[in-house]
């Protein structure tokens, strides 16, 4: 494993600990007087009505799905983008065709109404 990735691994450990330490310090510095009224869930100053569960709109799922498809396609483009010096014109046009299909897909999703937020 190259030492570059080792740095990132160590950075990950450090960065998981560094915010934790002040939070722990504040836990000891701050007053601790829990009572049942303070721990109630906030609902604009009144008592909570109903379950925490609300019915979500399907638009969230649509946006996440569209994002997933585009994410996968864009990730394919990164190796293509760095190989420009070695590619032929056919290679560049193949990537452009890929992008045009992506574009057509955005238009299809738009026409189907997947990008609306009603």
């Amino acid at each position, binding site marked *: 494993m190259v030492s570059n*990735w080792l740095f990132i691994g*160590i*950075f990950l450990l450090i960065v998981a600990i*560094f915010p934790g330490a002040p939070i722990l310090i504040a836990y000891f510095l701050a007053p601790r007087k829990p009572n049942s009224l303070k721990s109630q*869930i906030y*609902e604009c100053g009144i008592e909570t009505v109903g379950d925490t569960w609300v019915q979500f709109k399907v638009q969230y799922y649509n*946006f996440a799905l569209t994002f997933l498809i585009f994410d996968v396609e864009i990730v394919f483009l990164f190796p293509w983008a760095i190989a*420009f010096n070695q590619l032929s014109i056919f290679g*560049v046009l193949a990537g452009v065709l890929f*992008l045009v299909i992506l574009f057509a897909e955005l238009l299809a999703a738009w026409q189907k109404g997947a990008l609306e937020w009603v």
Partner: protein
Amino acid sequence: MALLSDPVIFIANWIENLLLGWGLAPLLVTIIMDLLGAGIISVAMLLLVVILIVLERKLIGRLQGRFGPNRVGPYGLLQTIPDMIKIFTKEYITPQGADIFIYNLAPIMATSAVLLLWAVIPYAPRVVGSDINVGVLYLVAVGALGTLAILLAGFSSNNKYALLGAFRTVAQMISYEVPMVLALLVPVILARSMGVNEIVNAQYVWYVILAPLATLILFITAMAEVGRAPFDLLEAESEIVAGFHIEYSGLKFGFFYVAEFLHAFTISGVIVAMFFGGWRGPGAETYPILGFIYFMIKTFLIYFGTIWVRGSLPRVRIDQLLGFGWKILVPVALTLVIFTAVAEKMMFLMAATVIVRILVHLVINLLLVLVLIVIFRAQEARRPLRKPVAEPRTVALGRHSVPPESPSA
């Protein structure tokens, strides 16, 4: 002289030789050096936030025609210190029914996701945390971790407003991640490499001159990713009542706050590294300390740009937000990538000079902006004019009616 002109490498070499001289194994020496580097970067960034917060408050104040904080310290510059003391000593109120482990993990994860971004940005000619060759994808990946932290914060609070706020935040962030990755693809094509260090090294001409539209798209989408105005409807008080961090108090909320400011600064750093040449400037190669100063100056200038936009533009609605992201930014970014790719390959084959390259790319960008302006104008012209809402009408008062246009007394 080497200490003054290249302090980081000098000190790093000195410590490394010291540790090797004590007879430690090379792997252990590497680990200790990495720990020191990571620790210094994290602490420096967390302390930098102190300056950033007070700077932002004073600038926003000035943009709104008032002084910012001006009581504590000279010109109010020490304001963040009493603020920090206050936040440290506030009580942690955990909502009932909250998922304790995830509830506590979320602010730590949000801050980590921001600090991790600093590992791959080059600060000076040979000073970079980690020179991995997939730096651009690493930036996107760490952004994804930040999105996840917000989702965790939202649903672990056992509060339906937090849940709704978290979902909207995530919908906003993922909608703007696609044009952001596409805009980041442009410097990757121009530099032929995915490593941030190599992109900075390849910028003999800053990429903002080659691809100003990509810079603009990255600026807009980065601000939407961070959740700053004008895209901050998720945290604004009048909107969803503070969104996903309703149930957080004390230092946990403090860390979300810190993470937001630091994220804005970090993303300015990323924009500078990708488009504005990072540490490049006159004399930066011979005196690396100058490179670091240039990098900081440029990052602060872009950060000032984000504060300026925050103070000037009104907030957008969620449907306007998502519509703008998907229907305008994604097609523009896709067309930009297509044209940049084709033009770059053409010029590579024809072995064009630098000036021709600059001119061709600049022309492509400006043409796209022109096309966009024409399309916007056409849309504006086609939108029906709003009818006047109120018409003057007679107001009846008993037997005497007051005509509508009487001059007021």
